């Protein structure tokens, strides 16, 4: 059981590092921006511009934080 658990943890860690990388805040910002975009869309507001703006700001903050 512990071998399977260790393998699953390692597998999960690999994919996390692979997709998210060393700064989780960028992924979190993208997730929040997409959720906000969808919420604004349901209230009738055009919010297609929000994810690209949030993504660029997240990259800027990440570059500053991980100097």
């Amino acid at each position, binding site marked *: 059981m512990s071998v399977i658990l260790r393998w699953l943890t390692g597998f999960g860690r690999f994919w996390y590092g692979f*997709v998210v990388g060393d700064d989780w805040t960028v*992924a979190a910002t993208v*997730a929040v921006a*997409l959720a906000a*975009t969808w919420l604004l*869309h349901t209230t009738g507001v055009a919010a297609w511009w929000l994810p690209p703006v949030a*993504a660029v700001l997240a990259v800027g903050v990440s570059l500053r934080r991980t100097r």
Partner: protein
Amino acid sequence: MSHSSVFVVTFLGAAVEVIEMVVIVVGVGSVRGWRSTWFGAAAGLGVLAVLVLAFGTALRAVPIGVLRVVVGSLLLVFGLQWLRKGIRRVSVNGLRGMGERSASAEGVPASGVDWTAFVLSFKGVLLEGLEVAFIVVSVGLAARALVTAAVGAAAAFVALAGAGLLARGLVQRIPRSALQLAVGTLLSSFGTFWAVQGLGIGWPGEDGAILGLVGWYLLAAACYVWLLRHRAHRPAVQEPAGQEVGR
């Protein structure tokens, strides 16, 4: 979305990783011998082909809207990671190539399989290729053009592997950092486009919005490269005399 744009994105995305793959394989092969290196590379490529086929087939059953939100978000996060790395590397190294990676020639067996060469080559191809497989599956499925995406990546592999074998120095001189930055902008653009489209939100200008997104991310990358370079070259502020005492 046209098949030609899927081809271009997967070709360039694969090229970034194939350069590194080729440099590893050519480096190992030229030092430790070619036979076991080829076996390792072929085994790595085989595993990658199986992964693309398995994930590609399994994920075809998922509804396109859900698929675009999930794949688009993943592609956006992954693309931003490359964009960030590309910005940082270009701001530090400019448009330099990646140079040579060497392997030790110690203990090469006279006959039989050289497992060091096999494992180095297999690992190099598989690990670098996983990112290619990710791009092929996500771009191919979101655009409903998996075959075109796979052909784009295969074309990058054939072109760069051929160039690597014919002129080793040529592949090492390709400015990988700049290419990574360019592909980061492309993946972020397509990721943004599909994630928003998958939410049921239309883009102004439909598919043409992708060009606007590419321009937006490129402009942002150029500004960040400039800012990082500017900050690195800024002279340190001189402290008044006597300030150091007591520190």
